């Protein structure tokens, strides 16, 4: 009996490896392919999954399946996936990635104002301009490592914010930012006089939605969301490929021991710079998509808190894991948009079944953690994750899975012992 278990134990990883090596599906190993398929299913079915409560029910305020928010989930997912390629793999903590998001947004809106309201050229421009800016910022910031690197990137981002806000007003629109106006005449579009161009994909309006009503439920399928979802799936796929490539292995080597890298004939700097530029391009792409969904941009998009947010997302979800950053982005955006909307009236509604005094007491206790106090809940959650789950939400999930597996194994053992 024991013999058998040790034998299968020894063979299992071997089989796993050969399956991973056989690849087959899109050049991914079996487990990565399964993960990709899960992400594809979740993003494509999001309009259902995020609206589990019937319209008009008391729980309906927890529904997150409206286009605006779903778009934000996937756009920030892209931002965090890219950030994780730099931070998760190389360990270099950039505190200025919002600058690339901003540059991407400005590039996209100019493209839409001047060339065409079709979103494709705008998105391509956002990636290119973010890449160019990332080459400059990365080249200079990567002269230092650790906290000095973080401070340099922060300085660059705050400088960009300040410039966009003031000196560069002719390009950035200063404080008010840029919008698509009726006076914009993109030269590839044939707009009627006075007509305002709308973001579109070869004529399909980004804001177009199909609403499906089933019983009390209402599901919204929005063109913009699906465009973002497809882009995020592609971005996620590319991230997996990078993680599993020799290049990705070198990035992990950078994080592990740069000294050994040097004495092994490898130059860490170009590897780190490449990772920096790639993650800057992801940020630019996210910025471009933001403009494609909502055709406006302001300098606050580059403010340091925006750079900090993506750091939180990545760490909360699990830095260095594939799916973690996406989870982290979803969590934070959900809190920001849903938990923040719970006001004291809603709370009174929830606790109405209690006697008056107790009702007020419960509301008083819960109130600081919701509504405008959502930052408090998020902060506590973040602290708990960093202290108890250094691997983020992904580690939490893995621990739960292991617990179940152990229980199953224990069940099996008692059963066979009984036999």
């Amino acid at each position, binding site marked *: 009996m024991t013999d058998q278990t040790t034998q299968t134990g020894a063979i299992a*990883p071997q089989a796993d490896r050969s399956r*991973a*090596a056989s*690849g087959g599906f899109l*050049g991914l*190993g079996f487990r990565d392919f399964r993960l990709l398929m899960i992400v594809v299913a979740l993003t494509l079915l999001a309009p259902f999954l995020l609206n589990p409560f019937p319209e008009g029910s008391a729980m309906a305020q927890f529904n997150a399946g409206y286009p605006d928010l779903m778009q934000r989930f996937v756009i920030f997912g892209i931002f965090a996936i890219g950030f994780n390629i730099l931070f998760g793999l190389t360990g270099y903590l950039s505190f200025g990635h919002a600058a690339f998001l901003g540059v991407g947004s400005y590039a996209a809106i100019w493209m839409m104002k001047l060339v065409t309201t079709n979103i494709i050229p705008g998105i391509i421009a956002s990636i290119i301009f973010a890449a160019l800016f990332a080459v400059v910022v990365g080249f200079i910031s990567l002269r230092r490592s650790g906290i000095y690197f973080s401070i340099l990137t922060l300085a660059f981002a705050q400088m960009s914010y300040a410039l966009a806000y003031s000196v560069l007003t002719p390009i950035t629109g200063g404080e008010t930012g840029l919008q698509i106006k009726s006076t914009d005449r993109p030269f590839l579009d044939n707009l009627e006089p006075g007509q305002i161009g709308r973001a579109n994909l070869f004529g399909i309006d980004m804001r177009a939605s199909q609403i499906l009503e089933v019983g009390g439920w209402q599901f919204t399928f929005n063109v913009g969301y699906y465009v973002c979802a497809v882009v995020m799936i592609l971005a996620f796929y590319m991230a997996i*490929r*990078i993680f*599993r*490539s*020799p*290049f*990705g*292995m*070198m990035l*992990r*080597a950078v*994080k*592990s*021991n740069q*000294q*050994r*890298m*040097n*004495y*092994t*004939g*490898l*130059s860490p700097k*170009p*590897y780190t710079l*490449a990772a920096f530029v790639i993650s800057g391009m992801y940020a630019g792409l996210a910025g471009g998509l933001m403009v494609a969904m909502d055709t406006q941009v302001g300098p606050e998009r580059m403010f340091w808190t925006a750079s900090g947010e993506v750091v939180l997302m990545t760490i909360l979800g699990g830095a260095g894991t594939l799916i973690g950053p996406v989870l982290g982005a979803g969590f934070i955006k959900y809190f920001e948009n849903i938990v923040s909307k719970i006001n004291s009236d809603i709370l009174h509604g929830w606790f109405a079944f209690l006697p008056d005094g107790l009702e007020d007491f419960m509301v008083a206790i819960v109130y600081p953690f919701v509504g405008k106090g959502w930052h408090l809940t998020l902060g506590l959650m973040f602290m708990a994750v960093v202290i108890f789950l250094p691997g983020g939400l992904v580690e939490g999930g893995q621990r739960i899975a292991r617990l179940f597996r152990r229980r199953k194994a224990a069940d099996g053992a008692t059963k066979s012992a009984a036999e």
Partner: protein
Amino acid sequence: MGILEVKGVNKRFGGLQALGDVNLSVAENTCHAIIGPNGAGKSTLLNCLVGKLIPDSGSVMFDGQSVLGRKPHEINQMGISRVFQTPEIFADLTVLENVMIPCFAARDGAFRMHAYETVEAEADIRDMAMTMLEDVNMAHKAEEHAGSMSRGDKRRLEMAMCLVQKPKLLLLDEPTAGMARADTNNTIELLKSIRDRRTITMCIIEHDMNVVFSLAERITVLAQGTPLVEDVPDKIKGHPKVREAYLGEAQV
């Protein structure tokens, strides 16, 4: 003319003369040992050879080219690999990945944007790394996390990482320190077989005199940053100057 020629190298740390007018010539495909008491400047000398330190004066020629002013990764690509006194490995990676990285470095150079292929698909590199691990008896640990191994295993891994590059010159800084007796014997056997293949020049710093006398063909004794004598092992054993330098230290 040796493959490695060190001439008149000086290195000061503040008031301390760590290396004073060091001359050293290592013949191709031989094994040369550097011995000397603690603090004699042995590690400092190796640091000057691999670009970790730049000597204040003097010249270091390898294979007819100067190494001074080159970056560590350029010097490695010239054919010099080094095993450090405290093991330098990729602690967060697996043992196999640790050995694959130098294989990539040897094949692709200091940088290659290798983002599209998968590591899984690199069968040649994988085979090369696995063969190396078999040579050092570590194949069964290939999937282990390198950082959680014993110090002896880390050293053996580091040696595998250097050897798989097929360097022209292998520098070893106390490769058996912290190893169990059995591991030490294995290491001696491994290094002997490398020496006897006559394709790699070795320069070894070692405290264990058993190791030194069973491996080295020439020995340089360093004391207070200056070479005292250089000779074949038999002459070094009874040399009065060496006894003097080692007084109270190991028995020579």
